[in-house]
């Protein structure tokens, strides 16, 4: 065990205790399968099926979803590397599967995960699948089957699914850019280490650890900790990665995903789902387009707007967290424990204040060289976004 609670020491613990982590991972797989399957077992007595179904909904959507969103924003994708049942299943399948190489073209489409996430969210919220046991089984269970199939086909003990296709991983990967923990690579130490390496670096999502500068897709599993004496889990300032993106790290599709999916679509899904898919899409397009216009107004050019879009991840992430939290409150409301309208708005303001301040700070750092009036436009745009979340329809009937 570590003598001090330093991130570096914990990285070493994660690397050295693979057996204990595997036990936890398989326990999560078991719990996940019970919660997914038991509520829909045919012939099961209602007095068993109903409480298990309710427990599943509370744990999936009331506890796990808001909790995991917050953990991604603050600490990175530890959920993926240490607990995710789909990750465990796909890696297990990959150890015993065909071991085919990853197809160069179709599976490597960079926007595939976020596109799948957008499609899944639209279906989920339009049909309300996350509030029914059968719906949860259909959507979440299908994703798990695809993860299993992907593992059975591709990679040799790797997490090809998590790297290239996992829909929710597409969003987690965005949120984790904000996190205060990351694996820091000392490139000089890596290159100076004796060669060939005693053993290859073990990275389940097949990241280029030598050139790793981002939390993007990093499952934080710790297996690369200490490799070549060059890799360690370390603190960094919150949102640092968003403020220091290299030109080649700013991608058009990703900026569009932040504006139209993380912010637009998920706002629509959280607050306009009662009115059907058209209303969700209209809200997504409306908020997304308005956000895109304010980004252009604040920077004056397209490249600047793309870069500035990344600084909206904290606000979008906390907006997503708020939507998840309100769903948890909705479950409490149905159990007879309601929050007042005033309480709801106080909660919204408190959560959004964190996201807005974080995004504002990151945005102003990026906009350090632009005229003051553009920074005022930026601050106004952010405020309008926060107001849009705050004044979103109240999900609790009076």
């Amino acid at each position, binding site marked *: 065990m570590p003598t001090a609670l330093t991130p570096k020491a914990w990285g070493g613990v994660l690397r050295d205790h693979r057996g204990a982590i595997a036990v936890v991972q398989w326990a999560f797989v078991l719990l996940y399968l019970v919660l997914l399957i038991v509520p829909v077992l045919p012939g099961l007595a209602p007095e068993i099926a109903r409480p298990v179904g309710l427990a599943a909904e509370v744990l999936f959507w009331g506890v796990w979803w808001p909790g995991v969103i917050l953990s991604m924003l603050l600490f990175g994708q530890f959920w993926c590397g240490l607990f995710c049942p789909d990750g465990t299943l796909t890696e297990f399948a990959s150890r015993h599967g065909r071991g085919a190489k990853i*197809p*160069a073209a179709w599976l490597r489409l960079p926007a595939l995960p976020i596109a799948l996430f957008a499609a899944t969210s639209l279906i989920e919220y339009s049909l309300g699948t996350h509030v029914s046991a059968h719906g949860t089984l259909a959507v979440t269970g299908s994703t798990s089957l695809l993860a299993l199939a992907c593992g059975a086909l591709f*990679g040799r003990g790797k997490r090809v699914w998590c790297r290239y296709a996992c829909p929710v991983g597409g969003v987690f990967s965005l949120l984790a850019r904000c996190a205060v923990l990351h694996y820091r690579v000392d490139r000089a130490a890596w290159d100076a280490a004796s060669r060939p*390496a005693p053993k290859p670096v073990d990275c389940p999502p*097949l990241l280029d650890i030598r050139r790793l500068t981002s939390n993007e897709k990093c499952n934080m599993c710790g297996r690369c900790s200490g490799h070549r004496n060059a890799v360690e889990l370390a603190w960094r300032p919150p949102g640092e990665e968003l403020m220091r993106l290299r030109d080649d790290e700013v991608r058009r599709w990703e900026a569009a995903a932040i504006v139209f999916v993380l912010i637009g679509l998920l706002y629509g899904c959280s607050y306009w789902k009662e009115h059907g898919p058209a209303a969700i899409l209209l809200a997504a397009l409306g908020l997304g387009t308005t956000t895109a216009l304010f980004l252009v107004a604040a920077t004056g050019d397209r490249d600047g707007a793309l870069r500035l879009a990344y600084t909206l991840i904290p606000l979008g992430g906390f907006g997503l967290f708020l939507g998840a939290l309100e769903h948890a409150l909705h479950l409490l409301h149905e159990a007879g424990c309601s929050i007042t309208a005033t309480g709801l708005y106080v909660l919204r303001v408190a959560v959004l204040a964190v996201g807005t301040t974080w995004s504002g700070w990151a945005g102003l750092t990026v906009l350090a060289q632009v005229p003051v009036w553009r920074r005022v436009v930026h601050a106004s745009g952010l405020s309008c976004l926060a107001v849009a979340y705050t004044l979103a329809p109240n999900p609790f009937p009076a």
Partner: protein
Amino acid sequence: MALLINNLCINCDVCESECPNEAISMGPEIFVIDPARCTECVGHYDEPQCIVTCPVECIIVDPEHVEDHDTLLAKYRALTGRA
């Protein structure tokens, strides 16, 4: 034909130790293959070990160094001193 590592390489270290000719080394950004030492494993194995072990599709035939089987075999003999 010698082989070439393209920019899909993830620097995973797997190929370097597998090469029987010590033709693979760490380059400035990704691993590189020395065409003067690459025999595509002719003389050692039935197929190139770097391609077999690479987890991603990043090793291809180098179009700038096209060699037939006999040439690769001659290179193997020159490198190893075996007949």
